[in-house]
């Protein structure tokens, strides 16, 4: 699978499409992508320290691959793909099953109808309780704002499967929230 030459993922408006292999600053790549890489790992591993370790490993791996990286957008694409797969591998390797099921996610005490930290945390924990593939699809869709076709490429799964994961996950979350009456 080829990395997309031009994507909407580089949304900072600076230096996304520099000439291949010229002037790529690894420090800038780290700076620009650290939150993305770390956050994807965090949603999966649910452990800040381990998420940072994994993110560091992925950046170091990229450092070894810099000879093949053509642009900043390419680096972002590479990092996103790498952290997705490394996160899934890591969670499987360590046999980290969701420590919580959707049913066990405690209801927020504050049932306010506007976004608030409690609802945010509650949703996060519900997402973290989703099965691996579904969780990654939801994270890439709503954290990374990727389209289903992009997620399909990223995770090497059919678009229909991506849409199915999204549909079922949203229905599950919606049902759970409705049951707990925390969401409109």
């Amino acid at each position, binding site marked *: 699978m080829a990395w997309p030459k031009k994507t909407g993922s580089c949304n900072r408006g600076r230096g996304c499409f520099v000439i291949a292999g010229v002037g790529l600053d*690894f*420090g800038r790549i*780290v*700076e620009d992508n*650290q*939150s*993305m890489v*770390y*956050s994807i790992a*965090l*949603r999966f591993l649910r452990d*800040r320290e381990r*998420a*940072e370790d994994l*993110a*560091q490993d992925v*950046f*170091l791996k990229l*450092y*070894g*691959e*810099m*000879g*093949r990286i053509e642009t900043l957008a390419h680096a972002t694409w590479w990092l996103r793909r790498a952290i997705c797969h490394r996160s899934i591998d890591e969670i499987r390797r360590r046999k980290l099953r969701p420590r919580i099921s959707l049913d066990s996610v405690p209801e927020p005490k504050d049932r306010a109808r*506007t*976004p608030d930290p409690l*609802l*945010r*945390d509650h*949703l*996060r924990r519900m*997402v973290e309780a989703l099965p691996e593939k579904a969780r990654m699809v*939801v*994270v890439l869709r*709503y*954290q990374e*704002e990727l389209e289903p076709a992009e997620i399909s490429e990223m995770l090497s799964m059919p678009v229909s499967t991506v849409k199915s994961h999204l549909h079922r996950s*949203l229905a599950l*979350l*919606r049902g759970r*929230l409705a049951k707990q009456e925390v*969401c*409109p």
Partner: protein
Amino acid sequence: MSLEDNLREALRREMPSAGFAAKVLARTTLAKTPTPVWRRPVVWALAAGLAVAALVPPAVVEYRRREEARGLEARRQLLVALSITRTKLLQVKQRVQRNPL
């Protein structure tokens, strides 16, 4: 807000701890010059090890068997060639001795 908006809000990217980038860059200095993965000896060794581990039972044994067969056949041919050469030179030597110039 819709569920999807709430999800976007909940899944907003977070920054790692302060100094994360510095730690990564510090580790890259230990890693020295970035060399392509395929050019690193350790990767070659690892790949070779994995390949051996994965393929030894059928492929490598078969390859070795064929190489051994080829080698033994080459050795046999070499000895045949030298033996014929020896015989012919002996014949020539005898002919010369029979009919000295």
